[in-house]
């Protein structure tokens, strides 16, 4: 609940009315069902006219106690549940969990499997950024066109995911020590085809959007996040990079085989909504570069480490934290194993969307209520991750 403002603050006298007109602040609850929230998310705003004076996010409408379920199942049993965390990108969630377990247990992944993982992750990043831009423009009022273009490209990548893993969205593809099924030559050819066509789609998208007057006018200087607040607020991912924080887990930790690829990390300077949009466009172009290199250099080899047992998989007692650069930010898993070793004693997800919401109020203060929706769209939240 928002603390009610005191009586003196609620009423202000409109200047220019000669002290005769009184105005009052208005408490509006945006959500949990609203055409522009990205899921069931509620914001309690206090408005003075159209300007936001206070804003508190309310979440928990999709809290499905994923962490408690994982404590009752074996290590591999919670892999399908990680798909449903950030339900837009299931491949990267799977990889983050597999990475955390491999770190704890000390499993080495063969090179071929690492390359397949990189290909899947970068395709997921392309998917995610395209659709985020589509959703953000839908919130701006571009009624459907960029969203339908984005979903058209998404369907092509989902076809590849279905051919490789059997399901469009909830792929459940990564295993500890590798991937579940190998990619066939046909799948690699389809991936090459997608990668070769994507730059042309991006050019088409950018021609419509990047220098578009309406987009520029509505997103520049809106929702500015200063660099120090971004670091202090644990903001990660494209949102932090748009504010000038030069930190990408792929470059900092060099997990998997990312050390072998040549790619840059785009960093913005102002930290407004337009920067977050443009950083994502540039990241998509870098992802295409990584994909081209990975598809060119992929070695032959086993798709899963042969010494990993699938049944009776045990981990010695201890705890560990493994993280990856997901499309929304730093996705990490903190796992604690006890003496039995067959199930996690504690399983915690470090969700990027949840933590990126910390500074929502700071970004929205002083903005108009219509801009609140766009700022929320540019943070790129997925409620499955926020609430787990």
């Amino acid at each position, binding site marked *: 609940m928002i603390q009610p403002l005191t009586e003196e603050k609620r009423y202000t006298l409109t200047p220019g009315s000669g002290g005769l007109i009184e105005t009052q602040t208005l408490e509006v609850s945006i959500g*949990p*069902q*609203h*055409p522009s929230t990205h*899921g*069931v998310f509620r914001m309690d705003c206090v408005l003075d006219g159209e300007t936001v004076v206070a804003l508190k996010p309310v979440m*928990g*409408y*999709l*809290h*499905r*106690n*994923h962490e*408690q*379920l994982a404590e*009752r199942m074996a290590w591999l049993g919670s892999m*399908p*549940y990680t798909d*449903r965390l950030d*339900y*837009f990108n299931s491949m990267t969630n799977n990889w983050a969990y597999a990475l955390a377990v491999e770190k704890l247990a000390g499993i080495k992944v063969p090179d071929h499997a690492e390359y397949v993982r990189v290909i899947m992750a970068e395709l997921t990043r392309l998917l995610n950024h395209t659709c985020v831009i589509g959703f953000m423009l839908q919130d701006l009022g571009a009624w459907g066109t960029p*969203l*339908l273009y984005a*979903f*058209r490209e*998404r*369907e092509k990548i989902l076809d590849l995911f279905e051919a490789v893993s059997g399901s*469009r*969205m*909830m792929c459940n593809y990564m295993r500890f020590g590798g991937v579940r099924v190998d990619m066939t030559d046909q799948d690699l050819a389809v991936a090459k085809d997608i990668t070769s066509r994507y730059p042309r789609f991006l050019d088409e998208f950018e021609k419509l959007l990047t220098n578009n007057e309406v987009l520029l006018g509505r997103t520049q200087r809106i929702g500015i996040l200063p660099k120090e607040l971004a670091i202090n607020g644990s903001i990660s991912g494209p949102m932090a990079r748009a504010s000038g924080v030069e930190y990408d887990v792929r470059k900092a930790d060099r997990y998997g085989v990312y050390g072998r690829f040549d790619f840059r990390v785009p960093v913005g300077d102002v930290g407004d909504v337009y920067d977050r949009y443009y950083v994502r466009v540039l990241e998509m172009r870098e992802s295409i570069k990584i994909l081209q290199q990975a598809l060119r250099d992929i070695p032959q080899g086993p798709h899963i480490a042969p010494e990993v047992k699938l049944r009776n998989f045990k981990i010695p007692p201890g705890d560990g934290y493994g993280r990856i650069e997901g499309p929304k930010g730093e996705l990490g898993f903190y796992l604690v194993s006890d003496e039995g070793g067959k199930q996690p004693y504690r399983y915690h997800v470090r969700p990027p969307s949840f933590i990126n919401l910390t500074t929502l109020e700071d970004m929205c203060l002083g903005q108009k209520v219509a801009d609140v929706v766009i700022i929320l769209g540019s943070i790129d939240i997925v*409620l*499955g991750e926020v609430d787990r």
Partner: protein
Amino acid sequence: MAVDEGLKSELQKQGIFVLPFEQLYNWGRKSSIWPLQFGLACCAIEMIASAASRYDLARFGAEVFRATPRQADLMIVAGTVTKKMAPQVVRLYNQMPEPKYCIAMGACAISGGPFKDGYNVLKGIDRYIPVDVHIPGCPPRPEALIHAIMTLQRKIANQHLEKGQRPRWYDKDADSEYPIPTYGEHDLQPPANREVWQPPRDYRDVTLEEVKKA
């Protein structure tokens, strides 16, 4: 009242169509079902994908997804309904004007799905509101959602307007609003609406007499 088939075909050749009024009425209603834009979780993405260009849902009459319940005919509950969200779902259903329909999309909306063991998960939205079509799947493919819309269309086509066979929405005495649960200390109060949902019978309650009779 059925029309003689021979007479019907004779008149059709002349360009005159004869059909019962309720068929025409149902045809109009089933061909323009406007859903409420109400996605909760992962199934919402498949709902959006089915409304996108590839599996175009607008062909079946779902032209626009309305943002407000006051203008919608159909509520597609797509995704897990948690106990924190359940009062809001029931409130939205109450706000929809009759005739209204509800589709439970995905395993989570039918019965809690993979998250059935949750302290915050409502084990199926049909505990509080009546559901017309259930779609299994996790998530169901967009084709499955289209199949569900077609099933709903068939159900609407079979509705009658005569007294005694009227659906709920045409009956002046039937109540179209359902009680909204409140947040209790440990659980929602009440945990289920007994008029809408009865728990299925446990096979272990089969009595001795029934065993002997069979």
